[in-house]
């Protein structure tokens, strides 16, 4: 389990990193925390002639808050975001999802941007980004652009980032008013990829009617997915427990999770509906207290 030979590049600016990606094209890959890439390289399941290690790129690190968004630099460590009070206050859903990523040793190395760009459909951060409608900032020698979360995740381990583009940061919207959030997942063991998981966010008006709702799932498709049917069923209502159960059932019914080694699609549907009910219930409960 030794990686095939590669050249290691250690740029110190985004411009240098982008230049390397432009130069080497599909022979290059960005290396962030290495928690997914290095095992794949060691198993020789993938190989690149050039690794562009962005660890030293200072402008990729850091968390900043504006009125309506939380910006997380791509190379910010997951552990840093997990323990950041600003993150917890601005985007509670992100803070609640982070502890579910692997184990603390992994989060001490793994980066927020790395997980998003790796785009494993069973991982937590892509689903949070999709659920909240995050905006991705990409840079290349051609310039910078923004990509909406709805357009970002294009398939298992694939994103809208072009070969020569590097993910610079991600802006998570900050929801205002009476809001609540829920995150729930089921994994074989503590820290494993989820068999199924749900992220939910709701905002209520003064009469407890849902004015805004977002439900995303992990582990049930080729990409993170929104449970649109559940959202539609709840928007504008002040649901009781039975209505939440019904919405979760409807949300799950529209999805067709696949079988794999660890769970059948039928199992994922059963557990997914339950998790959706749990996460939504928790989110609504929290918003009502707010």
């Amino acid at each position, binding site marked *: *389990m030794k990686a095939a*030979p590669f050249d290691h590049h250690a740029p110190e600016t985004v411009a240098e990193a982008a230049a390397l990606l432009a130069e080497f094209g599909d022979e290059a890959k960005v290396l962030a925390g290495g928690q997914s890439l290095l095992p794949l390289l060691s198993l020789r399941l993938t190989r690149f002639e050039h690794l562009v290690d962005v660890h030293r790129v200072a402008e990729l690190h850091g968390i900043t808050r504006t009125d309506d968004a939380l910006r997380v630099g791509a190379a910010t460590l997951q552990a840093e975001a997990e323990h950041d009070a600003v993150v917890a206050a601005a985007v509670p859903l992100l803070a609640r999802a982070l502890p579910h990523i692997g184990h603390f040793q992994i989060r001490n190395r793994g980066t927020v941007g790395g997980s998003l760009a790796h785009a494993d459909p069973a991982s937590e951060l892509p689903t949070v980004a999709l659920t909240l409608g995050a905006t991705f900032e990409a840079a290349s020698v051609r310039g910078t652009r923004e990509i909406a979360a709805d357009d970002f995740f294009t398939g298992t381990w694939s994103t809208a980032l072009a070969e020569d583009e590097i993910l610079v940061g991600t802006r998570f919207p900050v929801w205002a008013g009476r809001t609540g959030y829920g995150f729930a997942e*089921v994994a074989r*063991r503590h*820290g494993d990829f989820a068999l199924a998981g749900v992220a939910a966010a709701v905002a209520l008006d003064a009469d407890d009617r849902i004015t805004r709702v977002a439900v995303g799932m992990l582990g049930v498709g080729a990409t993170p997915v929104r449970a649109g049917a559940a959202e539609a069923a709840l928007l504008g209502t002040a649901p009781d427990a039975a209505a939440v159960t019904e919405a979760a059932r409807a949300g799950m019914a529209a999805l067709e999770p696949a079988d794999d080694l660890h*769970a059948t699609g039928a*199992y994922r549907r*059963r*557990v997914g509906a*339950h998790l959706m009910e749990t996460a939504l219930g928790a989110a609504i409960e929290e918003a009502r207290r707010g």
Partner: protein
Amino acid sequence: MSAPAAGRYVGQAVQRKEDPRLLTGHGRYVDDIVVPQMLHAAFVRSDLPSARITAIDVSAALELEGVSAVFTGADLNPGAGTMQPSMMAENPAAVVAPLTPLAGDDVRFVGDPVAIVIAESRALAEDAAELVVVDYEPRDAVASMEAALADGAPLVHPELGGNVASDLALPEDPELEAIFASAAHVVTERIVQHRHTPTPMETRGVVASFDPVTDQLEVWLSTQGPHEARRTFARVSGLPERHVHVRMGDVGGGFGQKFFTPREEQTVVLAAKRLGAAVKWIEDRRENLLAANHARSDVATVSLALDAEGHVLAAKLDHLEEAGAWPVGGTGGVGPFVAMLFPGPYRIPRIWWRSRVVWTNTAGRGAYRGPWMFESVAREQMLDVAARATGIDPLELRRRNVVGDDEQPFTMATGMTFSATTSATTLEHAARVIGYDDFRAEQARARAEGRLLGLGIGLYIEPTSTPAATLGVEAATVRVESGGGVTVFLGTAAHGQSIETTMAQVVAEHLGVAYEDVRVVQGDTDRTPFGGGTGGSRTAVIAGNATREAALKVREMVVGVAAHLLEAAPEDLEVHDGVVAVRGTPVRNVSLAAVAAAVHNAGTGLPPDVPRLLEATGRYQTSSPTWSNACHICTVEVDRITGQVEILRYVVSEDCGRMLNPMVVEGQVHGGVVQGIGGVLYEHFVYDDAGNPLTTTFLDYLVPTAAESPRIEIDHVVTDGPNPEGVKGMGEGGAIGSVPAVVNAVADALAQVGATVTEQPLTPVRVVAALEAAGA
């Protein structure tokens, strides 16, 4: 039954001598060995489960700079000696697969080594391995016992003429059939235990260095048995045993996988000999999961006949054991032991059994902590099936059938005789600690709320220190050094058992020195007496009693010299913590250092009748197993939606005789229990129907972690073992009792809603399927 008193050192939870280096990351493992100009090996392995090799092209690999050699079967197989362990190699009747260092004309499982690449670094060796081109003509494979036993199934080993390695059975028994025909209750179930792999934290590894001038082979090995390894390397290489020196350092676990000396290690030795060089091979995790020996994979159809009061009248066991393609240790066939031990601690007056061992195109089976433990899985699950069928509480059913502590020696219907076990006592203790009746009440309350709690019992007896071949003997040498310190030389091979600690305790106790002044040396064939290796729960009993004898002999020597120096009678002297004193007159004393100085200094002039040496070898030999026993009880909650199992409480009541060190005993129990839990709930090595392995990384082969480990409550029942030190073996037991306890607990929870599970692993999907099948 009164518990024997602990000694000054024996029986105390003294701190481990191993801990300072192991807990600070300073252990020294085989990968830490560096030999000047050492080369590195990587294997080219088959990615097909069965295929004829039509061509191997190594030219591109050889052209890579830094590659020293690429060997195939054509290079290393001719002239290689047998690769079987001693107990098979020396048994002409043994049925063994035709194992060669590298694949010959064909490959027989995914992972079969086809070539070995030797290069300046492991990374380079892997680069070159990718360049070796092997042309295969694929054949149909048999990836399961069912497929292997089908009519017209492809043969795993065409040379052997069939896929059944062995088929042993008792003759038809009309009387037993009559018992079944007239019994008040008959239960029959198919019990399945799936394939595991031992997954030691340190994978296998070897450094082999051959000097063609002196014909000397130096080997550093991650092993459980350096002396067995030496014999194996001598046989396969044709070198005389005296020219083979095997050493081991710290070993990060074995669990049976390193008990014999596997194929790859032998192949690396042959490559080193061929090159006249030093070669290192450190198995990576993928190789370990793919090709190091696997374990378990048993199926049995079991029937019990019971009378109206729940007494078992007779049993039938039809058992299949999967050997894989190249089992480590011969056929891997523990099947007959499964059958012979099936009655366990219960009165089962009559039994019929059949046991077949089946070849498949999968990784070979090998030893794993309690290799025959399927007997406990099958029996304890069946007792719970019988309890449900008869309406008798499972604890009560066991009470009615268990052999009493005072009814031993007891001979099972299979002919095995056990003695000095306390199953009935541990059953009661475990039930008391878990609060059996209270739990049943809690279970009923939870059920009323719609929650599913369950309780499972695993009661077993274990033949430890079984004296097969060289395993019934061990020797130990104790030497007082010139300054008065003590060195102990053992043929053992610790890989997590705290042998440096426990054997130092034995020496400190019986020689009369301080624990701190004793050092244990093991794992070196040039320095230590021959030993059968560490495994089979044999070290405490066999090495422990040998060490005791050696310490007592040296004590006698020390006393003899001290008697001369003190001008006292030997029988008036006592030895404690390195001081020999006249009993009742402690001021008349001499230190062990002074005794050693007298012996080592020729000028002192000891008279001829005084011992001239402070060194002795003890030997212990046994011709029958030492039985230990335990009862495991756990309680679980099954999540009705997700099918996940949470262990609520875990209790072990065990009797391993006098404990050399209770902390070490408990550590062994903890490790075994967690392995058993892992086996039931998480671990499963999966092949698809075509024979492709699907779980070759830790992403998919799920071992239990600390997060999945419950707190384990241990109750010790201490009775004297049938040997001078009073000990019984116990290293494997935790992994035996835990499996049926957990399975039965889940089954107990599910039974409340009419759901049944008899097949492991109990994955969330399987539990949910059982609930759905029951409409629950």
